[in-house]
């Protein structure tokens, strides 16, 4: 009896420790970093087309810094310098270059957009500085990236479209058995066109056909989608897939409902933020996407993250703000760096050596995070659960189902 009672206490106690500290299973020895600061840089899109996502990333990062610094990292504090790249790839590369040249930054988070990552990541790779992409979901971001120096210093904690979209299509097939689809995508944006390629493949793999003229491409600066929607309506298909960023998916959904389309919408990671759900409103209800995160995830680490986020951030009306996928991934990126730094035996005298040590430690990170238990794959990509979420019609999300990735 006594033995049973002891065991019954150990489980909750272990969970509590995981929740409070973000447990390490990587088993490195802890060095003493007393009085030191682990400086990171973050390049995010606070303005421009990616400005829909950047502010939530900044929130997630700042909250993570606050949370981590309550206990420190082996006695050190963590600091993240957040800089805006204005959603411009050249600016993004320049910010990364500046971070590295200061000689104080151990690692970098970002950039927000896949379009910018292709310019910024090679800079970090060439200068042997770890970079964790917290929201770039396009193809060839990690593992098989086409940069001359490879991508050994590039990691991502954001769920790639190559995983999220096929799972999303699979969920739609299970739910409503669609046979035909149209596909909208912005042809001048890497994220959107990568997503479109993945959609085409996933739809074909599930026996869903796209009729002639059913691939509707536009510029990301297009203002009026009426004509596109009229064309899509004329195809009489079972579902509409949209691969685009910012407010465009919402505009398409509103116009589609106004023109009488009543079928389902499928989207990519561009849908995974409250701003798009709010903009789409009632007309967006049911639009579903594969996501790395669900705010209602019943997990102690996520619950403490959500509570802290709601306490710290308010919306325009002063109500507590809920974190979205983008915020959770950025928050997790800082947790990942903190855990890697804890086990990296940093010397604080030779930044190049410390960046190498941090890179090696990143590969072994295995932590509890708001995204679930998190570790990188051998390709430095994410290994985590995929949530299939849908707009609730009131600016939020509901969860429909989930898949275990990889």
């Amino acid at each position, binding site marked *: 009896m006594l033995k049973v009672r002891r065991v019954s206490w150990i489980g909750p106690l272990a969970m509590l420790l995981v929740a409070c500290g973000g447990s390490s299973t990587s088993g490195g020895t802890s060095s003493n970093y007393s009085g030191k600061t682990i400086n990171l840089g973050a390049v995010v899109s606070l303005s421009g087309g990616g*400005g829909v996502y950047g*502010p939530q990333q900044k929130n997630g990062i700042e909250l993570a810094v606050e949370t981590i610094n309550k206990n420190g990292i082996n006695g050190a504090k963590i600091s993240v310098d957040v800089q805006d790249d204005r959603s411009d790839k050249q600016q993004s590369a320049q910010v990364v270059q500046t971070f590295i040249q200061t000689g104080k930054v151990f690692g970098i988070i970002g950039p927000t957009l896949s379009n910018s990552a292709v310019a910024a990541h090679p800079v970090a790779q060439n200068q042997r500085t770890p970079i964790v992409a917290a929201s770039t979901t396009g193809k060839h971001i990690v593992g098989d990236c086409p940069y001359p120096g490879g991508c050994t210093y590039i990691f991502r904690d954001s769920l790639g479209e190559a995983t999220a979209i096929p799972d999303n299509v699979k969920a739609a097939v299970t739910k409503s058995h669609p046979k035909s689809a149209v596909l909208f995508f912005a042809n001048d944006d890497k994220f959107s066109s990568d997503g479109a390629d993945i959609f085409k493949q996933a739809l074909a793999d599930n026996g869903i056909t796209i009729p002639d003229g059913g691939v509707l491409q*536009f510029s990301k600066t297009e*203002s009026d989608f009426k004509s596109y929607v*009229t*064309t899509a309506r004329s195809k009489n298909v079972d579902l509409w897939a949209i691969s685009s960023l910012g407010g465009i998916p919402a505009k398409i959904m*509103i116009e589609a409902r106004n*023109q009488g389309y009543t079928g389902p919408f499928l989207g990519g990671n561009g849908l995974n933020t409250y701003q798009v759900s709010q903009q789409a409103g009632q007309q967006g209800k049911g639009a579903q996407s594969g996501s790395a995160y669900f705010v209602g995830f019943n997990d102690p680490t996520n619950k403490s993250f959500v509570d802290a986020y709601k306490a710290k951030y308010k919306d325009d009306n002063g109500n507590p703000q809920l974190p979205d996928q983008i915020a959770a991934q950025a928050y997790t990126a800082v947790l990942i760096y903190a855990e890697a730094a804890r086990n990296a035996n940093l010397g604080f005298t030779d930044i190049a050596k410390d960046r190498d040590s941090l890179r090696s430690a990143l590969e072994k990170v295995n932590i509890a995070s708001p995204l679930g238990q998190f570790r990188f794959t051998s390709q430095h990509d994410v290994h985590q659960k995929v949530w299939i979420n849908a707009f609730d019609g009131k600016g939020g999300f509901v969860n429909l189902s989930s898949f275990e990735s990889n």
Partner: protein
Amino acid sequence: MSRLLLAVVTAQPPSYYLQQLVNGIFSGSIYALFAVGYTLVFGVLDILNLAHSAVFTLGAVIAFVLLTHFGLPFWLAALLAIVICGAIGYGLDLVAFRPLRHRGAPHISSLITSIAIALIFVSITENTFGANSKRFPPGVAPSGELHIGAIGIDRLELFILALTLFLMVVLGYVIRSTRPGSAIRAVAENPRAAFLMGINVDRTIAFTLMISSALGGLAGILYGLSQHDVSPYIGRDQVELKGLAVIVVGGMGSITGAVVAGYLLGLVEVLVLVTLGTNVRSGVAFALLFLALVLLPAGLFGERAARRT
């Protein structure tokens, strides 16, 4: 060619083409409304006021903030936003254009100043309003569709169409038949001669910028309503370059030209989408601009430009 057109036209029921025609007309309304204010300033100052797109944005953003944060009724929020945009236009002349004009600076200086002002306005909007795309709450303006057979016509867009044509007529009347309009025409023709005839040139130019900006603000509000999109970038990303194409094609400085070219662009974009597909639509405005420059250097209604040359 005729076979291609025949194949395209018979591929869909007639209602599809009629609906696309309606779509083209409504798209053109926004281009026209934006371009009217744009071209008015060019007609008087002979400069492109590239801050016009930022004022367009401010119109939508100010109305949105007054409506959602201050709880004003929509009509009052819109009216105040238009008045504020007009005042901004007046201020623009005082701060950005008049000092350069008095120093006899070349027109390129004013163009650069207007770009700087546009960047400042967008930056202020980003930092106060945020970079997110938002929408006016449903129900603040006439909504819903009228149905004529299988054709759906949005009530709001019908209103925008009527307003655009009304403004074209009223502005035309003001410019042609009123005393301030005569002053504007005189300054546009020759500022020095206008001054010698007793016209207050500075005041006339500031008045023109005020009217132009108020129209820009109104266009921004109507864009935000009809496209469900209010963000710091609606002017810069969505209409600025197309607006430029419209005023060049219409004839720089011509209000009627701006309206006609606005509708023309909307219709040509739809025609291209229907016949050639969606992937080439984006380039249409600039193909049209190129053609206009080659075939009609003064634009469709470019009397003043022709006269000057």
